[in-house]
């Protein structure tokens, strides 16, 4: 099962995990990315995420297909939130269910590493005294 979603609704970790879990596979590896309260000692007020929806879903689909092909995992769920996020809120959840937990861990790690490199989603950090698109400049 591949389950992909990008939306501005808050993410529900328990629901995502339940969706990804199947009775035939005992182990689920999950990565949850939340909004940090600071970046390089600069206090973050909020983040603003935007995405290029059609391309982002296509890139997520590639990640999911590759993860299934490479590690024989059963289910992969990748949900990313957009819009305004406050400190502690969840920006991304990846849940991978596989018969073997090694595969679940490897695939989950691959998915978040690759998402951060290839999926067209951008975040702007809003500080008390300014704002900045993350990674835009070297």
């Amino acid at each position, binding site marked *: 099962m591949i389950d992909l979603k990008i939306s501005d609704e808050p993410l529900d970790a328990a629901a995502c995990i339940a969706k990804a879990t199947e009775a035939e596979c005992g182990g689920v590896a999950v990565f949850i990315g939340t909004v940090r309260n600071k970046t390089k000692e600069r206090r973050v007020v909020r983040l603003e995420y935007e*995405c290029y929806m059609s391309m982002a879903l*296509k890139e997520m689909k590639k990640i999911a297909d590759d993860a299934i092909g490479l590690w024989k995992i059963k289910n992969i769920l990748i949900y*990313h939130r957009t819009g305004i996020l406050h400190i502690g809120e969840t920006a991304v959840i990846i849940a991978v269910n596989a018969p073997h937990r090694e595969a679940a861990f490897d695939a989950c790690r691959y998915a978040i590493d690759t*998402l951060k*490199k*290839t999926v067209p*989603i951008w975040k702007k950090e809003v500080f008390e005294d300014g704002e900045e*698109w993350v990674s*835009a400049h*070297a």
Partner: protein
Amino acid sequence: MKTTILAFGIAKEIFGGSKKELELKDGITVRELKNELESFFPAIKKLHTYLIAVNDDCAEDDLILGANDEIAIIPPVSGG
């Protein structure tokens, strides 16, 4: 040909909007488009990197653009 270029993230700010209508010569390549963009909007050159996506895929520099292509500027991504 008349095209619409989509811009996201910092590219949207550089462009002053999420869509930009541009009149491009027929048979223009991605490389030539980048040159035009960089001369109209020099701030693009200051980005760490950027890509042109055509129809939801990253495009090679020698791809020739067509009037019906969906063209987008992809500054460095930062999801997660």
